[in-house]
């Protein structure tokens, strides 16, 4: 078990600057960070990527705007750091609301009959899940197998072999997901039905992540490979991975341009190497002035 030692900061500073961490440690673990190290382990924090959106939060689907943790508006690069979500919170929520409202007042009504047919098809797909008798697959089992496979293949260190195994596993789970059987066949507050629908989406997103990771033959940001692609490759991969939904098959992976305005990609170094890189950066900036 790894421990995070914050004792040198003292209780007063910890309570003032890290109140949430302090409270979690005390109330969930019974550990007082002022007097004892906190046991920690790696966990998934955030999805680096999401529904691709332009600066006004418009997605590639007309009329759909995305903002927040589901969105990839292009400001975060290959490693979204903690608290950078503030940009989503303070900037893009308002932008999305205004853009969607503008769109809603200017757009002409669509073809009602055609939309009605689409809605009926969507309803029937959802109803098929809650009405299904037999099948025998349990939501929690599939979800757990998916999470374990993502941890194994798309965790902190990655290789083609482990990522391929994950892609194969996800394809299997997508098949088994067709046989999910719920206990609850009611219509009011049926949260198991919701979980079953969500499981399908979870698998779609997992596939987008695993396949784009497998195709990316380099290391960048949070994507760290150990199988001969340990370095960043700006010639071939300074690009956004784009995963296109293809129905039941694996997603199609393509690439789109990255817009860099200020922060050039650089090596993230720690310790002595980090200090040296920082000194070089400062020298460079001074010489440009």
């Amino acid at each position: 078990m790894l421990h995070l030692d914050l004792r040198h900061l003292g209780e007063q500073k910890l309570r003032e600057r890290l109140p949430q961490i302090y409270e979690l440690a005390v109330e969930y673990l019974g550990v007082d960070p002022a007097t004892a190290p906190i046991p920690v382990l790696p966990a998934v924090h955030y999805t680096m990527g999401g529904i691709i959106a332009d600066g006004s939060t418009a997605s590639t689907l007309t009329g759909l705007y995305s903002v927040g943790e589901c969105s990839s508006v292009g400001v975060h690069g290959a490693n979204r750091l903690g608290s950078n979500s503030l940009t989503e919170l303070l900037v893009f929520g308002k932008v999305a609301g205004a853009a969607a409202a503008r769109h809603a007042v200017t757009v002409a009504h669509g073809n009602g009959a055609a939309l009605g047919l689409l809605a009926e098809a969507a309803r029937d797909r959802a109803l098929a899940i809650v009405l299904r008798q037999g099948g025998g697959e349990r939501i929690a089992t599939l979800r757990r197998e998916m999470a374990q496979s993502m941890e194994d293949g798309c965790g902190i260190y990655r290789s083609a072999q482990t990522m391929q195994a994950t892609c194969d596993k996800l394809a299997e789970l997508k098949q088994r997901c067709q046989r999910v059987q719920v206990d609850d066949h009611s219509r009011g507050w049926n949260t198991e039905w919701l979980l079953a629908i969500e499981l399908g989406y979870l698998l779609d997103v997992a596939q987008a992540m695993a396949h784009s990771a497998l195709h990316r033959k380099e290391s960048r940001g949070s994507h760290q490979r150990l199988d001969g692609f340990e370095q960043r490759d700006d010639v071939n991969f300074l690009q956004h991975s784009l995963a296109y939904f293809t129905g039941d098959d694996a997603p199609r992976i393509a690439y789109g341009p990255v817009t860099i305005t200020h922060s050039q990609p650089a090596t993230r170094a720690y310790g002595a190497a980090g200090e040296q890189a920082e000194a070089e950066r400062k020298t460079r900036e001074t010489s440009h002035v």
Partner: protein
Amino acid sequence: MSEPGPTIQIEVLRYRPEQEDKPVWQRYTVPFTDDMSVLQGLQHIKDELDGTLSFRWSCRMAICGSCGMMVNGKPELSCKTFLRDLLPGPVRIEALAHFPIERDLVVSVGEFVKKLEAIKPYLIPKLPRTLAEGEYLQTPAQLEQFEQYSSCINCMLCYAACPQFGLDPGFAGPGVLALLHRYNADSRDGGRDERMPILNAEEGVWSCTAVGYCSEVCPKHVDPANAVNQNKVNSAKDYFLRFLTPKGGRP
């Protein structure tokens, strides 16, 4: 064969309107580990034993405020209440008191949200401000005036604890009144005039009989009882100043 591990009994008050006329208790046996929250116990039931059990949850870390329920008769966040503290069991779980049950542990939040919206829980600037004028500055002392009250996560535990709200569902209630105070007490805010009528009304602060249980159950240490009782003073001042100036002495 391996020894079966320790277990704990969890009893849940079920209500499925499509199936039952009135709530019924149902008992489950759940594997017990020392680090398990009540919420994890419920999730084990839903995942492995009975997918028909409905309850709300999201963050698992006392930030979203959606997993409030009665645990052994006390309003608690189920993510922040641990089975190890409830041994030997059985642990009895019911929907939050004083709210209409929609199903199982899911209560209706519509009326609460209406009250919340009514107090305008956002900063209303005193004067329009341009970007060029920069950000609002605030001293640590000004921050301290409201910071504690800004920790509210709208979990409604204080409503389940409040006997007055139990008697009169029209009462604005501790959580909403604490949030009203959070904005009124903020030096950047100019919305006091719009909020005072809610505070002054029969169903505002004056419905509170100062029981104080709301503050005891608050998982974020907001102390709504303190906010409400400070505002009895503010409301009284507002009332008497009304005889002197039309807006209760407010600028």
